[in-house]
């Protein structure tokens, strides 16, 4: 067991150690300061701006939001067409035809929203061209959209103009996502991940040459690195990072784990540099880090102790390895599950459906909270929205006008922030889940009986609304109902918050700063950070507590009592 804890601790240490450097680099990029790749990238950026007709004009909150919506709509239509035409497009060695219209629509929405929820298996549904030219494309642009929104939000919060969406989107790709992906893809190819246009290899099996094995492959490595770095999470193969060709060993697993949390962790440091208050940034950083560590402990203990019913058959304690690969074992599987739901990546290296209830509780909680570092860009923005709410709550307690970074928090901010935190997420999850559960035979497609079945349905909508994309994959979700109803949650969970965040930031950036006095509530103290953590747990978690109680908590009691 100790060895498992050591690998987990070291992974966390590496992650935390790179954040100051990466966060500083991101800040330099978006503060338009000099960075090391300027000599190559300045001309490239200029060429891209010229070709796309982008002029670096400052945008207001509405203009920024409209640019996000227009560009994302253009991308959505574009990749939908690629899916529907894949039968007559090149690079399709397995000769796959177009999927059904609703599956293609769900996939397009799911990838444009940085979710990558997959109601299909990659190797049997989408051609190589659809994978690298449509899905791989969205992995860059949806991640870039998230980063751009976060940067605009940080700029607004710190009293700057929001910037220009197209400039931010393009620079997040040319200066952050693409250079790291190039290096990462080289490492992943060297470590064994395929990168080829050749079709599946068919070989006779060693034990019985009458039986053949089909070894699916493809251009995976370049796809894999942006899948994690952009917190996309959509697997090239149906079984995602559990597939030996997506994640063949401990080295690739480490790269994927660090990549999938590196941007949302670093963006908090980026905020600290913009706000010129690194102390506050690290205090804020400590909230999700503490929750993350707690969640890792809960999950790993469950997986390490294993399934009591199976342990009784085996005649001793053994880890729960159902849906897990030997090369990852209980420790790396549990760690990956917590990281991927915390970060809204949604890649999986083991099957969440087969986790012990501890793991179900944690993965669901991560999807409900959305700030345990959270989605690409949006997680950081949510975290600071909670901060604004905490300022408001504490302001009420001491009877002073709440201020954040020297700007008054007024009705508009509180309305937008509480709308964002308290309403959008529950509506996008609980209402469609209630409808689905009302028709268990016709709609739900539940594959595991009892309390776990409820978790399956809630998880699917929570994953869609939080733009995570992982799933309890036993669920029969490839249906018209699931494709359309989760599309609603995907869109609501993505674009309503983005517009609200941009308006919030726009309002903040226009306020007159008030000078700090002795009576100003300081927001960079441990006490205030603690209160923020409390506000997060109360507002974020309580709404969903009934779902947790009826799902994983009840299942845990059921397992203790004995199955059957």
């Amino acid at each position, binding site marked *: 067991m100790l060895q498992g804890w050591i*690998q987990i601790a*070291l992974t966390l240490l590496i992650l935390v150690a790179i954040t100051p450097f990466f966060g500083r680099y991101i800040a330099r990029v978006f503060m338009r300061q000099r960075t090391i790749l300027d000599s190559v990238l300045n001309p490239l950026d200029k060429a891209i701006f010229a070709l796309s007709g982008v002029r670096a004009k400052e945008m207001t909150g509405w203009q920024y939001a409209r*640019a996000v919506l227009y560009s994302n709509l253009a991308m959505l239509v574009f990749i939908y067409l690629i899916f529907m035409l894949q039968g007559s497009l090149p690079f399709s060695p397995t000769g*796959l035809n177009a999927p059904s219209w609703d599956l293609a629509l769900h996939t397009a929405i799911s990838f444009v929203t940085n979710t990558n929820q997959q109601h299909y*298996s990659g*190797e*049997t549904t989408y051609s190589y061209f659809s994978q690298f*030219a*449509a899905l791989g*494309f969205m992995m860059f642009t949806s991640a870039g959209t998230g980063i751009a929104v976060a940067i605009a939000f940080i700029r607004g919060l710190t009293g700057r103009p929001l910037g220009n969406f*197209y400039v931010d989107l393009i620079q997040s*790709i040319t200066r952050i996502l693409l250079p790291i992906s190039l290096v990462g893809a*080289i490492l992943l*190819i060297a470590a*064994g991940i*395929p*990168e*080829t*246009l050749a079709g599946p*290899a*068919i070989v*006779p*099996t*060693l*034990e019985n040459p*009458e039986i*053949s*094995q*089909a070894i*699916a*492959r493809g*251009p995976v490595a370049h*796809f894999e690195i942006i899948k994690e770095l952009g917190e996309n999470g959509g697997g090239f193969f149906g*079984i995602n990072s*559990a*597939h*030996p*060709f997506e994640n063949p060993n*401990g080295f690739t697993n480490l790269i994927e784990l660090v990549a999938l949390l590196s941007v949302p962790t670093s963006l908090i440091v980026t905020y600290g540099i913009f706000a010129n208050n690194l102390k506050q940034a690290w205090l804020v950083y400590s909230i999700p880090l503490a929750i993350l560590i707690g969640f890792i402990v809960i999950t790993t203990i469950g997986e390490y102790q294993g*399934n009591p019913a*199976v342990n009784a*058959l*085996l005649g001793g304690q053994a880890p*729960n*390895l*159902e*849906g*897990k690969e*030997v*090369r990852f*074992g209980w420790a*790396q599987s549990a760690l990956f599950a917590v990281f991927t739901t915390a970060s809204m990546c949604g890649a999986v290296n*083991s099957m969440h459906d087969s986790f*012990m*209830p501890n793991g179900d509780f944690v993965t669901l909680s991560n999807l409900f909270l959305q700030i345990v570092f959270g989605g690409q860009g949006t997680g950081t923005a949510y975290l600071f929205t909670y901060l604004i709410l905490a300022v408001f709550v504490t302001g009420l307690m001491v009877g002073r006008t709440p201020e954040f970074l020297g700007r008054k928090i007024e009705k508009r901010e509180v309305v937008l922030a509480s709308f964002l935190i308290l309403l959008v997420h529950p509506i996008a999850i609980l209402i469609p889940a209630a409808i689905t559960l009302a028709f268990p035979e016709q709609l739900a497609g539940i594959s595991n009986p009892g*309390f776990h079945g409820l978790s399956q349905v809630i998880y699917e909508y929570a994953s869609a609304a939080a733009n995570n994309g992982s799933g309890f*994959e*036993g669920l029969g979700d490839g249906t018209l109902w699931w494709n359309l109803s989760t599309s609603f949650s995907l869109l609501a969970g993505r674009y309503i918050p983005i517009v609200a965040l941009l308006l919030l930031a726009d309002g903040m950036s226009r306020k007159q700063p008030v000078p700090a006095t002795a009576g100003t509530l300081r927001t960079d103290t441990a006490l205030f950070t603690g209160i923020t953590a409390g506000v997060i747990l109360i507002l974020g978690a309580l709404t969903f507590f009934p779902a947790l109680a009826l799902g994983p908590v009840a*299942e845990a009691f059921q397992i203790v009592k004995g*199955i059957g």
Partner: protein
Amino acid sequence: MSFTNEASRAIRSTLVLWVMTALIYPLIMIAFGQIAFPFQANGSILTNAQGQPVGSALIGQPFTSDRYFNSRPSTTNYSTADPTQDGAGLLKTGVSGASNLAPSNPDLLKRVQATITQLEQAGVQPTADLVYTSGSSLDPHITPEAARAQIARVARTRGLRPNQLEDLIAQNTEGRFLGIFGEPGVNVLKLNLALDTLNR
């Protein structure tokens, strides 16, 4: 800003970014992989003495007989099918999959019980990895304990000494990255390929 202006900017930036991230980037990486690391880039395909492909170093194969070290149970039988009876077209694309059975699902217990009975009849002490199905259904590894539990059976069937097999297991065990990250696993296909050369 007029509507046409905004729409044109959205479409043009989409196309420019598409060419860069969805055509140039993948094609450069494919060319790089094929030139610099052709073995890995094409799926780490293993070949026999005649140069014919026999499998991948990273993908498991089904082994259930007493002559071989057995691999883990798989929900897709390691993406295999009889080519003469492949109505579902599995061999056209290859597949991956998992049981997705919850720990509270009675079907899981029934399946585990059946697997344990099978293993005990074959004289193998059941280990967790041999009774639980893997995440990908293509897991190339079993744990070193699971390999050792099968030594007696394979040695008996093939008329080999147990310590010969212990050496083979050690040679085909893939360790943790830097001795720290991940878990050690015995590559079953490589082990069984080595086993066949030993007998000749």
